[in-house]
């Protein structure tokens, strides 16, 4: 399978159903369709035996749709942040995403509000912010060596055996390599090393100018660290039984810089508030001590596994 397109965890093509058209109050609207098939490369690991199209891939489908149906005259756009995203129902292979986009220009870039639906109804609602200038690559310029001790030298609290006892994600969607430090109920620090051998780089031509790690996978990786924190004392790596952790929403997620192969992400997450079965978590991801991603609030919810089943989703 060659991947001539952009470096992305989503291979589905975006079909522009309704090209961008000017509407009221300076808004531009458009519509796209994205067919999610069983060939999506993330599905074997999300999750083994029970494929669900990840929430971040729904966001990625919106991003690809936005770039395929940009507002006229906007020039080249790059994702700068996820101002809000809410996941309303799961997406399964075989679903076709109907994406309704609305663009608005602001002082600090373009905002794209999107409603995503499957045949069963609303799947997600999100507002992405795009800017014309591409965020700088963290690794693109010479940096002073960090004076702090490299975090990779810190003793490991938990490696793959412990991580795999807690998270249901598997290759190629298990995006946490090591836990550095965890204080259950409070905070976690975890590492993810980015490599050009990850499947998203398959088929990228040697001369490609852009090697940035897919931004939605930075979000996913941070969220998995948050998920480890949320489940540390009561892990359940099985998405078919018991109570499963769902990524419900994110607010105020900002990308600060590109991340390139060779970068080591240090995720930091802390629990803002626990409300019954729901946790609100905030944090950031650093490369060489500099933030590449900040998250004001992510909502993780524990729900009975049956709520994820297609049959249950159909009636939800």
């Amino acid at each position: 399978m060659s991947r001539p397109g952009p470096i992305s965890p989503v291979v589905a093509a975006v079909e522009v159903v309704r090209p961008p058209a000017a509407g009221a109050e300076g808004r531009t609207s458009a519509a796209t369709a994205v067919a999610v098939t069983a060939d999506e490369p993330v599905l074997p690991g999300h999750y083994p035996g029970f494929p669900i199209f990840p929430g971040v891939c729904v966001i990625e489908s919106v991003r690809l749709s936005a770039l395929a149906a940009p507002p006229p005259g906007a020039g080249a756009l790059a994702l700068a942040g996820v101002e809000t995203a809410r996941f309303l129902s799961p997406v399964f292979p075989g679903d076709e995403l109907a994406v309704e986009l609305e663009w608005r220009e602001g002082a600090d870039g373009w905002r794209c509000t999107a409603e995503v639906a499957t045949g069963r109804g609303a799947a997600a609602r999100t507002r992405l912010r795009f800017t014309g200038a591409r965020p700088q690559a963290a690794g693109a310029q010479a940096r002073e060596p960090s004076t702090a001790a490299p975090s990779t030298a810190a003793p490991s609290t938990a490696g793959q055996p412990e991580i795999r006892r807690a998270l249901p994600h598997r290759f190629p969607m298990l995006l946490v390599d090591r836990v550095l430090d965890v204080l259950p109920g409070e905070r976690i620090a975890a590492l993810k090393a980015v490599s050009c051998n990850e499947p998203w780089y398959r088929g990228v031509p040697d001369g490609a100018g852009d090697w940035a790690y897919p931004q939605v996978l930075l979000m996913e990786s941070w969220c998995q660290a948050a998920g480890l924190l949320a489940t540390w004392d009561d892990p359940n790596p099985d998405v078919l039984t018991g109570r499963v952790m769902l990524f419900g929403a994110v607010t105020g997620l900002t990308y600060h810089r590109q991340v390139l192969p060779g970068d080591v992400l240090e995720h930091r997450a802390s629990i803002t508030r626990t409300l019954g079965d729901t946790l609100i978590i905030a944090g950031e991801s650093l490369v060489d001590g500099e933030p590449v991603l900040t998250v004001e609030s992510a909502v993780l919810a524990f729900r009975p596994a049956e709520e994820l089943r297609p049959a249950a989703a159909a009636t939800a």
Partner: protein
Amino acid sequence: MTTTQETAAAAVLDKEDLRRTVAHALDVDVAELADDTGFIADLGVDSLLALEVVVVLEKKYGIRLEESQFPRITSLAGTYEVLSEKLRSA
């Protein structure tokens, strides 16, 4: 999210300010949020977003809301009442 960054000490309970804060947290226009507009019934807010509103209010007003009070935080009028009581007793 400038509204949430104001310090708790500076936050006094002004209803219109509260309306702006809640509208921002719910991601709706201020005009959509009448006193008796139901967050869940009228605006289609899901339970997770309702919880996020609670967290935004706690941060802004420097208080801790009890889960028993959440059912009243479903309209601006109810939210105003709960916060008034909470701030008076603080």
